Structures are given as structure tokens and as C-alpha cells.
């Protein structure tokens, strides 16, 4: 009757933040809540790292919720890929939370903060739950938990346009979740099971290929909506632009990435690569959409005047890169896509934190309002430029790494046009990042409006998290080969090669 902590890590990964969510409504005091939230998030990071090392030592971890064995009970199943995803989500959470404390204090009224932190922790719980579970229906449940919390967080800011963009996201997100649910329902109808491994074992014997294909299409479209794949990305720019800064940094780095995880889980673990890329023309469809996303996203970003919206459109383009790697349908392509998934999460996290620090001081994310900030907020803007270099893919940075492997994977797959496309699209990224750099460093500062306080450097509580994130990015870039081997190993396991 003794409790072996290490055996229960998959459950604790979800339970720890889940308990803090209702607790924050009871604690009332924003300081106490924040401390509880940070303790829980940092614990989650520790648990995720411990889980990854357990997976490396013992292989897949299986955990039966309530002691009920699958396929009847809900099973949590951790392999290398989702252990890495757990690390990503909790790492982003741990770095963004200290940033969020200061930023939220300014952007959300004190009475609303307990509820805001409840939503934040529920969102965090939901994202971790989606990643950890081995049950298809449980994925949907956690998807709803995290999405509903996200809608509330986006609407929580002072900007009332947040309300309409949250509503827009709510409608689109609900359609996406419903599509996923219909797909899962059809799979259940075909096989009588919801457990992922059990589904994978039973699907090859399915005698109604039409229902199976319908289920597949519903899930692909549902996931594409959630991950904002072109042309289903229209909810994203407004949601990112009008959400509180900390929320944008957090969800831009995690929510869409977790949706990509769900998609990959369905492609590889449940349907199998042979069905997804052989029977269904998924590779071709995804490749076209990914290429259009890379160009349309970057082009719109070039002409965008609000930096938060610009970064959101840049996300559309970057998600294009990730999907491009996946659409190659090779293991190296998959690994390159996954690597870009991790890199982009960290890069966008840093960029949105930098612009969040600007909003903290100036109250605006409009490009023309940023003029001359390079002198007033040198550290913030240097952080933006550093993360921007990663986004463009300058050698020695994370972005270079994943683009390099994307190019190699495309050559390996015999697609010689794609490297050119990647290069051109990266040049577009140079343009929109340069636009910001030009305004910030080479334009004279705006005169202060009457009654406006002089703009100074962002407080340390914003700068330190920002620079920690930037440092992680450059650390990744320097440890390139190690990171690549780690991701490649996870991709091989996902594709069933090891």
C-alpha cells in the first residue's frame, strides 16, 4: 500500500495543473494563485523530463486510469514523441508564466484575475491531456477543455475587439472539434473501440472503406481548422492580435502545435502511414496547402501594419513549413516537420513575448507606434531581433536547422522544386522582420502624447523570461545535431521503424 511516485507520472502530469485550476478560484489572491500556478507548471516540466528519460530507458509507458485495463478503460500512453511534446508545452508554460504575471497585472482587472488563471491552468491541463492520452475520445475531451479555456482567455483582455475575435475562434474551433468528434464517432462505429492502439489493430480489418475514408477526411479537416492550416486559418490573426499578450505568447507556442500532434497521432498511430499517404492522397493535398500557406502567410505578413497580426500570419506560413515536412511522407520529412514544430513554438513564444513587452510599455502593437523604440527599449528589441533571426533561419540558429533538414528531406524525397520555394518564402520572412527592425532602429521616435509617460525599458520580470526563451532558441541551434537525433528517433518510433 505504498505510493510509487515514478509509476504515476503520466497521471500526475495532468492532475497537478488540474487541481490548481479550481484552487485558484478559492485562493482569490492573484499573488498566491500565481505562485501555485508556477509551482504546478514547473513541476509539470520536471515530470515531463522524467517521463522522457523513463521512455528512453523502458520504452513506451502505459498507465491505466482508474485501474481499468484498455480497451475498456482510458489509457495514457507515453512514447518519445509525446514525451517531447509534454516537455515543449510545460517548458513554454514555465517560461511564459513569469512573463504573464506582470503582463496580466496590467491587462486584466484584479477581480477577473482568479478566473483568468483558472482558465490558464485549464488550458494548460487540456493541452497536456491531449498529448498524454492514448484514447481517441479522451483527446476530444481535452481538446474541448483547452479550447473553451482559450476562448475565455482571448476575451479576457481590455481590448473589446478580443470579444469578437474570441467569438469567431469559438465558432471555428467548435466546428473543428465537432468534425474531429464525427470522425472519432465513425471510427467507433466501425470498430467498437476508442483506444488508439486498439483502433490501429482493428482498422485494417474494416470492411467498409467508404466510412473509413469519411472518418479520415473529417479528422483531417477538423485538425486542420484547429492547427490553422491554410485556408482554415482565418480565426487565428484576430485571436492572436487581440488576446492579452501573455495569452498570445502561450497559445501561439502551444495550442496549434498540439493540434499538429493530434493530426500526426491520427495519421501514423491510428490510421497508419500506408492508409494516410497511400490509400488517401494526403501527401499531395497537404503539400499544396502547405506551399500556399508558406507564401500567402508570409505575403500578408509583409503588408500587415499590426505586429501581432503580422506574427500571426507568419505563424500561418511557419505551420506551412511544418506541414510541408509531414507531407513528404518520409521519415526524414516527418522528423524535419517535427523539428520545425518544436523550433517554431520556441521562436514564436519569444517573438510574442518581445512584442508583449512593447505593448506593456506603449499600449500598442501598431508598427508605426514602434518607431525609435530601439533606443528606448534596447534589450526588448534586441530580443525581438534575435528571435527574428531564428525565424528567418540564419545559420547557427534553430530556424536554420529545421529549414536545412526540410531542404535535405525534400531532396531525399525527389522534390527538387521545394527547396527553392523554402528559400523564397524565407526571404519574405526577412522582409517582414526587417520592416520591424527598420521602424525600431532607423525611424525617429514619436513625440509623446500629452499625459503619456516616457517610454522606458521593459521591467526585468518581462525581460528575463524573454531572454530565457531566446537563450533556449540559441542553445537549440548550437546543439543542433543532438536535437536532430532526438527528434529523428522520435519520428522513427512514430512511423513504426524502430
Amino acid at each position, binding site marked *: *500500500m*505504498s*505510493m510509487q511516485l515514478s509509476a*504515476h507520472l503520466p*497521471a*500526475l502530469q495532468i*492532475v497537478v495543473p*488540474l*487541481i490548481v*485550476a*479550481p*484552487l485558484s*478560484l*478559492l485562493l482569490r489572491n492573484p499573488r498566491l494563485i500565481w505562485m501555485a500556478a508556477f509551482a504546478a507548471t514547473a513541476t509539470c516540466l520536471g515530470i515531463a523530463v522524467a517521463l522522457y528519460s523513463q521512455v528512453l530507458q523502458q520504452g513506451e509507458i502505459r*498507465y*491505466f*486510469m*482508474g*485501474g481499468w485495463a484498455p480497451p475498456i478503460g482510458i489509457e495514457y500512453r507515453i512514447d518519445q514523441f509525446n514525451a517531447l511534446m509534454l516537455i515543449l508545452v510545460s517548458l513554454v508554460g514555465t517560461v511564459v508564466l513569469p512573463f504573464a504575471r506582470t503582463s496580466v497585472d496590467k491587462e486584466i482587472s484584479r*477581480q*477577473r484575475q482568479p478566473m483568468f488563471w*483558472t482558465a490558464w491552468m485549464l488550458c494548460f491541463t487540456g493541452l497536456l491531456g491531449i498529448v498524454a492520452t492514448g484514447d481517441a475520445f479522451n483527446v476530444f475531451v481535452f481538446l474541448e477543455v483547452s479550447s473553451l479555456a482559450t476562448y475565455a482567455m482571448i476575451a479576457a483582455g481590455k481590448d473589446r475587439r478580443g470579444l469578437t475575435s474570441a467569438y469567431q475562434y469559438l465558432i471555428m474551433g467548435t466546428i473543428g472539434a465537432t468534425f474531429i468528434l464525427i470522425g472519432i464517432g465513425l471510427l467507433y462505429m466501425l470498430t467498437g473501440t476508442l483506444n488508439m492502439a486498439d483502433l490501429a489493430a482493428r482498422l485494417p480489418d474494416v470492411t467498409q472503406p467508404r466510412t473509413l475514408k469519411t472518418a479520415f477526411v473529417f479528422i483531417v479537416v477538423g485538425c486542420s481548422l484547429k492547427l490553422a492550416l491554410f485556408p482554415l486559418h482565418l480565426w487565428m490573426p484576430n485571436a492572436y492580435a487581440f488576446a492579452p499578450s501573455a495569452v498570445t505568447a502561450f497559445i501561439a507556442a502551444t495550442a496549434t502545435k498540439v493540434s499538429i500532434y493530434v493530426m500526426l497521432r491520427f495519421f501514423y498511430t491510428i490510421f497508419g502511414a500506408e492508409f494516410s499517404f497511400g490509400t488517401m492522397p494526403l501527401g499531395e493535398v497537404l503539400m499544396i496547402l502547405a506551399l500556399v500557406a508558406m507564401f500567402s502567410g508570409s505575403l500578408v505578413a509583409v503588408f500587415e501594419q499590426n505586429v501581432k497580426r503580422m506574427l500571426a500570419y507568419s505563424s500561418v506560413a511557419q505551420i506551412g513549413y511544418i506541414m510541408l515536412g509531414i507531407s513528404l511522407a518520409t521519415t526524414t520529412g516527418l522528423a524535419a516537420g517535427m523539428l520545425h514544430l518544436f523550433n517554431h513554438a520556441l521562436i514564436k513564444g519569444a517573438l510574442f513575448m518581445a512584442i508583449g513587452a512593447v505593448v506593456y510599455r506603449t499600449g500598442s502593437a501598431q508598427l508605426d507606434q514602434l518607431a525609435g523604440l530601439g533606443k528606448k527599449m534596447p534589450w526588448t528589441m534586441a530580443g525581438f531581433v534575435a528571435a527574428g533571426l531564428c525565424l528567418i533561419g540564419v545559420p547557427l540558429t534553430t530556424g536554420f536547422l529545421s529549414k536545412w533538414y526540410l531542404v535535405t528531406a525534400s531532396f531525399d524525397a525527389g522534390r527538387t522544386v521545394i527547396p527553392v520555394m523554402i528559400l523564397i518564402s524565407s526571404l519574405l520572412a526577412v522582409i517582414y522582420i526587417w520592416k520591424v527592425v527598420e521602424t525600431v532602429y532607423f525611424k525617429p521616435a514619436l513625440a509623446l502624447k500629452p499625459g503619456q509617460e516616457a517610454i522606458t525599458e521593459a521591467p526585468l520580470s518581462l525581460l528575463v523570461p524573454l531572454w530565457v526563451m531566446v537563450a533556449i532558441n540559441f542553445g537549440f541551434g548550437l546543439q543542433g545535431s543532438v536535437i536532430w537525433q532526438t527528434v529523428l528517433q522520435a519520428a522513427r518510433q512514430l512511423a513504426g521503424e524502430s
Partner: protein
Amino acid sequence: MKHHSILRIITKLLIPLILLFALYVQFHGDFGPGGGFQAGVIFAAGLILYALVFGLDTASEVIKEWVLMILVPLGVLIYAGVGVASLILGGNFLDYNVLAHDPVHGQHLGILLVELGVGVTVAAGLTTIFFAFAGRGRRNPEGALITKAANPTQEPQR
């Protein structure tokens, strides 16, 4: 409030029965149809009926909003607490077998407590949602409801 005496008397007669039926659905849920969610909805329906017939001011004196704000998270904590208790007692998360000496007893106790948590949160949550909609335009900047008792001079808008 002098009008609608039939409505008021019938409501007064019905509300105890509704609340009692909610408790029946709650605690008989492990043997028959029912459970925490259904019971919570029925219980909240009783409270909402009271608020509809007797007005928001009277209702908000009977059902304090701060109590609701404690009950909503409390139910979730009861649910999660059962899971943590089973973890500490050596089982998996939410493994009710270890909650009592006998696994059957443990299962019984576990589902009872978990459903109680669900019932508390659903009842309080639905009532909170009702108050949130019904109290629109009647809240001070701190988000508290402006009642006649707190502000006797100002007649709330209907």
C-alpha cells in the same frame, strides 16, 4: 409581488420536491438511472425556478454568489481529491478499489464521492450562469450584483 399567488404557492410546494428529487437522482445514481450531472441540473432548476418567480433580489439573498463561487471549484476538487486519495492509497489515479478494505465497497464509495463532486459543480455552475445572464446590466464595476437591499433608492430595470 402581490400578484400571481397561484404561481407562488405552487412554486413553494414544488421547490422542496424538486430539490428532494435532485438528491434522490444524485444518491440513487449508482443503482438506477441518474448521477451527478442530472442531479445537479435538477437542483439548479429548483433554484432557478425560485429566482424566476420571486425575483433576482430575493433569490440572491437566499443563494449568495460568493457561496456559488466556492461551490463551483469545490466540486472539481472533490473529484480530483478522490483521485489523489486513491493515488496515495497505492492505486492508480481514480482507482476506487483501494478506497475501502473491500474493492466492491471501494468502488461504491468512489463513485458516490466523485458523483457528489460532479453534482455540486453542475448545480452551482448552472445557477452561476443563470445569475450571470439575469444580472446583466445590474452589476457595479466590481462585478457584484446591485440589489434593492444594497441600493434601496434605485429601482432595478426590468
